[in-house]
């Protein structure tokens, strides 16, 4: 009996001479949310497709709850739900017809299928649009329907490929909420994302993937501390107040701020954002006037720069320094 939901060792997928996935190892604990973070073209979708039995690995092996994806695909398919990057529902059917179809394909008959369809439509707030053709669905509605279809068989492992890419912030927050609820029912989730904050918000562990390889793996905190923290940018109204501002930062946060060349701006590394309030109060007490301030999180680009030594856009350029494995 295994407590590991996914075990992958040295997965490789080659398209022509493009090593799309180039030796990926993963270990995902049951009941956890695992984030695969990487830019466009990193190999996230290809990795998911191999784990979900949609694509045969060219090398390496993977198993889902102990069942090998290549040798026992039919068993694996009973254990997974897959929500693809691009809607995997039928455009010509209505939401109800889609869910009824997938209920039937999951072995639910007649009344049981209708009941399950109704429940899912309600749970995913699709009741009003249930009979309408999917053509008129918004991106968020489509994703919700897609996710609902993946949940019919209540799979213990769920693959979500970029579940919030292209969604507006409000819809994205709703999707995060839904994913958290799923995990609370005992599901294991493997999701891919291009956004560090999304991985941070949802995932217990994160693998950073670049050009088909895992370049870093760990908890969100481990990852962030490896790339550096958020920083506070302060713009002073008067350059003359710089020394008092530096003192206040040292006093409240215990770190040294870096003044920028024109000496009216300070960059302050922030380990605990809650303490920023204390700093602002202190600055006002000291009579330091601010012209502006902003919090900067490390972006995915910075993560990449730090972890791989090249920027994310490089992934699209000819891979001259690629070392054949």
């Amino acid at each position, binding site marked *: 009996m295994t407590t590991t939901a996914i075990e992958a060792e040295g997965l490789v997928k080659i398209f022509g001479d493009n090593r799309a996935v180039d030796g990926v190892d993963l270990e995902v604990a049951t009941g956890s949310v695992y984030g695969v973070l990487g830019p466009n073209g990193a190999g996230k979708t290809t990795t998911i497709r191999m784990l979900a039995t949609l694509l045969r690995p060219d090398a390496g092996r993977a198993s*889902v709850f102990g069942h090998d994806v290549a040798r*026992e695909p*039919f068993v694996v398919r009973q254990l997974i739900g897959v929500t*693809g990057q691009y809607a995997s529902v039928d455009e010509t059917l209505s939401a109800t017809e889609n869910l009824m*179809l997938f209920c039937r394909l999951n072995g639910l008959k007649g009344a049981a299928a209708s009941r399950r369809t109704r429940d899912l439509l309600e749970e995913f707030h699709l009741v009003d649009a249930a009979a309408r053709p999917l053509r008129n669905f918004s991106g968020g509605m489509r994703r919700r329907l897609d996710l609902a*279809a993946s949940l019919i068989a*209540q799979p*213990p492992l769920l693959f979500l490929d970029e579940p919030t890419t292209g969604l507006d912030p409000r819809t994205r927050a709703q999707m995060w909420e839904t994913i958290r609820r799923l995990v609370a*029912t005992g599901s294991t989730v493997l999701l891919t994302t291009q956004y560090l904050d999304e991985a941070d918000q949802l995932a217990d562990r994160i693998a950073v993937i670049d050009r088909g390889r895992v370049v870093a793996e760990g908890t969100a905190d481990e990852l962030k501390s490896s790339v550096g923290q958020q920083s506070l940018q302060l713009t002073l109204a008067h350059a003359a107040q710089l020394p008092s501002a530096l003192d206040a930062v040292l006093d409240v946060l215990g770190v040294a701020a870096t003044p920028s060349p024109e000496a009216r701006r300070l960059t302050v590394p922030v380990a605990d954002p809650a303490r920023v309030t204390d700093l602002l109060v202190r600055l006002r007490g000291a009579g330091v006037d601010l012209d502006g301030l902003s919090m900067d999180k490390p972006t995915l680009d910075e993560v990449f720069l730090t972890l791989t030594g090249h920027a994310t856009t490089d992934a699209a350029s000819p891979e001259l320094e690629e070392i054949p494995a």
Partner: protein
Amino acid sequence: MTTLTTARTTPGERIVPGAERTLRNRVTLGQAVSDTLAMARRGLIKIRRTPEQLIDVTVQPIIFTLMFTYIFGGAISGSVAAYLPVIIPGILVQTVITTSAVTGTQLREDMDKGVFDRFRSLPIARIAPLAGALVADTVRYLIATTLTIGMGLLMGWRPGGGVGGVLLAALLVVVCAWSLSWIFAFLGVIARNAGSVQGISFLVLFPLTFLSNAFVPVDTMPGWLQGFVDTNPVSHLVTAVRDLAGTGTVSGQVGVALLSCGAVVAVFAPLAVRSYMKKA
């Protein structure tokens, strides 16, 4: 808790861990049939939603029947009335077989959609997405068959086989079209895009339907061509349909047609399914 009965719990309930589930290693025949029917139902909804895709099965039988009968009737059989018993079975076979090629084109288009990824990720019979689409398409063959026979009757065709003979002939044509559609399904699966399926299908169908006894008596052809026409399975099917509709007799040609159909399915259904599953 066994297999997929877990699906009967309500959403929000605790999910049964993977290790505690009873899992099957393969599909049962019963499941293959019910999966195919579910997929066929999907196909029927699609046909209802996109009536413009029925143009070929509605317009072609009407135009072709009118055109061929009035253009060739006098030249080949002396009169339109005398030509009808020859041409209606011929047109029927030609139209319905051509229709079965459209199945391949539409399947290719369909397979490029994201929903096929979901089908592949479900624990369903591997043959179901293909078989379901092909079963739903029998509706198209039924429409083409009905219209062609209807046109013939309107133009004065009075088949000697009676209602029973005509119905049997129609059934035979639909069964054969369904069997042949596996060839086009296979082409659809292996082709790069819908356009090339259409091109290849036309290349296969054009000689098969015209180098047959569908439109003209074989004895007017040069000897070398007669050899091909006589072995062409389309000729056997046309003869079988003429026998059934014209005299109500179940001739040996019916057996030949059915056997050929069985052989086609036995070869191309596994080929199509195998290539379908291999396709990334």
